[in-house]
Each structure stands twice: as C-alpha cells, then as structure tokens.
C-alpha cells in the first residue's frame, strides 16, 4: 500500500454542522477508566441553560473548561467501509477549542433554594384533609427532578440530601426544619434514658414506636432521621453519637444568631439535653464552622458565642470573603479556615484562596491574622 494519502475536503459540507466534533482533554487515569469497558463508569453532562456545564460520573463532579488554541486542529476520517479501502482522508472542519476537566465541588447550593417552601411541617401527616386545606399548592420535587438541575453526581446529590436533612416522603423531597430535627433528636436521647435502652443495643422498631406513641413523630420520618444519624443493620440502630450530639448543639445554638449567649450557659443546656450518658461528648469542636466566639468584655464576664453557620454563606469565594470580612475585620487563621473548608477541595486550595482574597499578617506572639485585601471587599 502506498504511503501517500490524498486529503479531501469533506464530501458533504452541509453535514458538517451535524457531526461537529468536540475535543475533551482527559487526565490519563480518567481516560483509562473511560476506555475500560468493565469499569462500569457512567458519564453525563449536567446543567440548566446558562449554567457552566459540568461533567459527572456517578461519584464525582468535574467542571468543563474551554481552552482556545490558535492552531487549527483537524480531525480526518477515512472513506466509508462500504467502498473499497482507499488512500483517501476526508478533513473535518477546523477546531479551535478544546475542553479540559477540573475536579470541582458539587454545585448543590441550588438544592435548598429549590426546596424552599416544601419543608416538612409539624402537624401535617395523618390528616389528609387538613393538609389539603392548609397547604398552598407548592411545587414539590422528586429526586429525579433535582438530578436534572443540580450539578452534582448522583452519589454527591444523595449525600447532600442526607446532609441537609431532607426527608423523602411519598417520593417527594421535604427538608426537615432544624428546630424540628433537634426536637426529634432530644426525644431520642430522652427515650433512651427513660426506657433504659442501652446505647449499644437500640432496636429500630422499639425506638420508632416510642417516638410515635409518646412524641407523635411518624415512623416514616423517624426512620429517616435514624438513618441520617447512624446506620441501621439487622433492625438495630448503630447511633452516630457524635453527629447526634452535634445536631442537638446546633439546634440550641441556632436561636442566637443576633444575640449572643454565654459559652458556659450553652454548654450546660447542651449537656442537659443529651443526658448524662452523652454529656461528655458535647464540645464546641463539634460545632466548628457554625459559630463565632467573642472574648469576655465589660458587659459579659465570660466568653460568649453566637450562631454563624458557614452553610448560609455564599459558595462563591469572592462573595464568601466579603461576607466574612463584613462580619469580622480581623480573623485568626484557625477561625477563618473553619469557614473555608466547605468551599475548598483540600488544604492547598484553602491556602490558595487565603492568598488570593486575604492579607496575611503575623503578630509578635506568632498568631497569624487575616484581613481584607483592599479592592476585594
């Protein structure tokens, strides 16, 4: 066969639009997965119109970035197999853009916004007639509805639904308001004590029955709460004690978003709520990223604390930093890092954000502070 190939213009120029190729640059290991027919990988591109598209596997989310190149890339294909093998190549149209993928945190901020208004209410289950009268016809979303618009992989979306304490009732997603959730958890703690249930041997059936009979929490709700705060195996609930204690603490701290409360007072009521068995687990460390501490001053003789959850802050780094520096002019390093962990993939990314958006300064005693960069805020 000849080593000379003749190049042809594409035979059907009208067709060029239809078969436009896009080039996507892949990291080598990602590419291996794509090529392996047994990897079980599933890929899709997600986003609403106007969003920056993301590429999702079942577990991860990647941002798609377009890179312009000055040279022309041309994909050429051979002649159709129906004809005899020839030395002809047909040139496609010039490509001046390739896409790259960059790992990104799932874009789930939209989730809570969409579900606003479909929160689970206290007295709605059971009495259907009442519900119809009270409830305004709000749009309810199923998991599939959300998967269409939330730019996250299925696994990350499921995790976000769990983390944000969203109930799935009759196929619809309903956020469980925080005050309600803490109440249920406190019921759980008190039930464990009052019924003398060992923390190592909790029967799901018994506990949900107690919650229903004594506190009117429907089983469909309490079962999901148990799943959020532990694992259910063989009809036994293996409680995630840390998470449960933490949630009760958050519930107690939440009312103090404008007022402050004395740290000792908060800790006392927290320990009281979870009961003696779990009291030693109530620690401010559990509430990291959700509070601000104020040192003792003239008005308060002891350290005070207020509710300041990072989940309510913007996920856009620039806006996040503006919000942080509006709240406090000067931040200790360990304090500000707690409010960046959820928007940075890792420690390195966190440092990069601080470098870009904040000014670092060290005091004589070695404490590192961050202040706003002029021009950014």
């Amino acid at each position, binding site marked *: 066969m000849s080593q000379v190939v003749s190049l042809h*213009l594409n035979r059907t120029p009208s067709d060029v639009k239809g078969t436009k190729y896009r080039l996507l640059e892949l990291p080598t290991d990602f590419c291996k997965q794509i090529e392996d027919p047994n990897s079980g990988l599933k890929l899709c591109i997600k986003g609403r119109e106007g969003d920056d598209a993301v590429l999702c596997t079942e577990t991860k989310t990647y941002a798609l970035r377009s890179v312009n190149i000055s040279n022309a*890339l041309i994909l050429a294909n051979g002649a159709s197999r129906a004809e005899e093998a020839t030395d002809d190549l047909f040139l496609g149209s010039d490509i001046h853009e390739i896409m790259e993928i960059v790992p990104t945190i799932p874009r789930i901020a939209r989730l809570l916004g969409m579900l606003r208004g479909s929160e689970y209410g206290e007295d709605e289950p059971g009495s259907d007639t009442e519900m119809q009268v009270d409830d305004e016809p709000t749009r309810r979303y199923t998991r599939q509805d959300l998967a269409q618009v939330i730019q996250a992989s299925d696994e990350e979306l499921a995790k976000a639904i769990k983390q944000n304490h969203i109930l799935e009732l009759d196929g619809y997603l309903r956020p469980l308001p925080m005050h309600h959730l803490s109440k249920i958890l406190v019921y759980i703690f008190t039930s464990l004590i009052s019924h003398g249930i060992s923390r190592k041997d909790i029967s799901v059936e018994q506990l949900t029955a107690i919650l229903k009979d004594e506190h009117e929490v429907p089983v469909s709700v309490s079962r999901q709460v148990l799943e959020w705060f532990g694992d259910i195996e063989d009809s036994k609930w293996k409680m995630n004690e840390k998470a449960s204690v933490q949630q009760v603490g958050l519930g107690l701290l939440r009312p103090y978003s404008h007022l402050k409360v004395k740290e000792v007072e908060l800790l006392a009521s927290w320990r009281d709520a979870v009961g003696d068995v779990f009291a030693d687990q109530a620690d401010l460390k559990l509430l990291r990223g959700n509070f601000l501490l104020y040192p003792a001053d003239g008005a308060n003789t002891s350290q005070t604390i207020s509710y300041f959850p990072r989940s309510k802050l913007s996920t856009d780094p620039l806006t996040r930093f503006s919000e942080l520096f509006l709240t406090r002019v000067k931040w200790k390093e360990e304090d500000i890092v707690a409010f960046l962990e959820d928007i940075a993939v890792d420690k390195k990314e966190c440092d990069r954000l601080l470098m870009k958006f904040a000014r670092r300064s060290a005091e004589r005693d070695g404490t590192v502070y961050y202040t706003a960069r002029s021009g950014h805020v």
Partner: protein
Amino acid sequence: MIIPVRLPSQVPSPDHALPPAVASIGFNELVLLELQGSIEIEGDYAGETIGMLDMSIESKPTLRIGHHLLEGKLTGLPKPLAVLKSNKTAEPDNEVSFDIVSIIRKKIVFSKRPSPVMDNVAKDELQEPSKRKRAA
C-alpha cells in the same frame, strides 16, 4: 438537563476506515492533524482533493498543498483527547447525547512555514496513474 455521554465501548464502530498509512496514528478511525493557519476554501469543492500527505518517512511526514510543501512531525499528546460527537436523536423531545467516538493520543503537527515546490505537476501526473489504481 442531563446529557448522557456514551463511552467508547458503548458506541458502535465507525463505518469508515483509515488508509493503512495513517492507521497506526489514529484510533477508532479518526486521525488528528494540526495546522498553523487554516485551510480556506471559496466555493463548493466538497469531496475534492486538496493535498497529499506523505507518510513514507514516519518521523517526517510531509503535506503538499498545491505548490506548497509543509514539513511536519508526529507527536504524542501530553494528555489523551476524547473526541465527542453530539447525537441529535430524531425523538421529538429533542434529546441530545454525546458519544465518545475516539480517544486520540498522537497528532501530526505542521508548524513550519511552507516551502515552495519547484517540480512540475505534469511529472507527478505521468507517474501517478499507474500507482493509484483507484476504484472509480
């Protein structure tokens, strides 16, 4: 909106085949060329021959377009490139999906300036017909 992306193993093999001379460079019947500059055509010359790609010396492929000779080079890509092709299905709801039809690892780059070719075209034409018995 969710746009599914089909992996190479789920995409049917293409119905066209690369010429043997470049088959080892391409993958799944597509080969990537890089040009500094672009080919501009006025008028409708679809399917017409515009140049010859000579692969006889693999380290030094040449591209001849008219009286210009471009010297190229075969290079590996630092990262593989997936080739995505959009499928507009005929379904009424206008569902779009993408197929990864190929993974490209090598390209032929022509980054140098073209040099003029002085030999006459007639000589080529005298030799060529015997070599190129094309099924017409």
